[in-house]
């Protein structure tokens, strides 16, 4: 038995079935949550990012955003939280409650339709792509949770243009006892 968050015991023997049922439910919701960037793509934020990376490039000093910044525009900042229905959060919280308390990012795959420019406002959607496990890993036993983010620019004529996508995989695991 594992202790649930409120001290309620959940039987371990049906844990895998519960996890996979929840995964299926959330996957079926598709792009279940979205959030709009708080600010338009702007040169000041690009500049801060380039400085932090110690990277200089004329193109990125003149209105184009480095594609590696995709996430930055829609990152929930200090004091802002992900939407409650966010599929990745829902799945990882479910796994936490089932005893898989620790998390580690394991894979990231991004693709860019085009580079975004200063003045554009991004919107990101989030979907649960897949859940696989339980797997024995060097970190401990866990489930791999893959989410899919899609970034859009919405045009005045109502057209939504996809500009980037990201598959991100985390391992939710039971940390090994440390000696």
């Amino acid at each position, binding site marked *: 038995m594992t202790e649930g968050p409120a001290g309620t015991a959940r039987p371990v023997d049906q844990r895998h079935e519960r996890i996979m049922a929840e995964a299926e439910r959330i996957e079926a919701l598709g792009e279940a949550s979205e959030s709009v960037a708080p600010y338009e793509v702007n040169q000041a934020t690009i500049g801060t990012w380039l400085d932090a990376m110690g990277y200089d490039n004329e193109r990125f000093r003149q209105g184009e955003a*480095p594609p590696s*910044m995709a996430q930055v525009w829609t990152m929930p900042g200090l004091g802002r939280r992900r939407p409650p229905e966010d599929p990745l959060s829902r799945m990882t919280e479910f796994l936490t409650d089932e005893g898989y308390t620790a998390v580690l990012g394991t894979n990231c795959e991004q693709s860019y339709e085009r580079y975004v420019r200063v003045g554009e406002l991004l919107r990101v959607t989030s979907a649960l792509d897949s859940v696989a496990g339980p797997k024995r890993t060097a970190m401990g036993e866990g489930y791999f949770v893959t989410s899919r983010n899609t970034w859009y620019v919405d045009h005045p004529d109502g057209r939504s243009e996809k500009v980037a996508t990201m598959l991100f995989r985390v391992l939710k695991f039971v940390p090994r006892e*440390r000696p």
Partner: protein
Amino acid sequence: MTTELEPRTFRVTRQDLVAYAEASGDHNPIHQDEQVARSVGLPGVIAHGMYTMALAARFVEEHAGPGRVVGFGAKFVKPVVVPVEGTEVVVSGVQEERDGVATVTLSVTCDGVDVLRGCKATLRD
């Protein structure tokens, strides 16, 4: 056609991680605070995975020219531990052109150990 790209060494310090946290909005304390990092089983303060990936992406851009990367992916196999005195990340790559599509396969190491694996960039002309 296969081209080897000249390897590059990037120095990474705690100060860089603070700056990156600010620039990216990712303020997870495991990238700042030794005690927090150790409490979750990490060997110490680690670099943001996205920071390490961005270093590798920048390496590709500096060789291929900006605006060409259309896809970038990697597996985070080992955290980049950043002690107080800093550390070094070494990036090297091999560029291949096949059927008009260029890909760069990257090797990204810290202390001689792979930190990213399967790290690959897809380029357009």
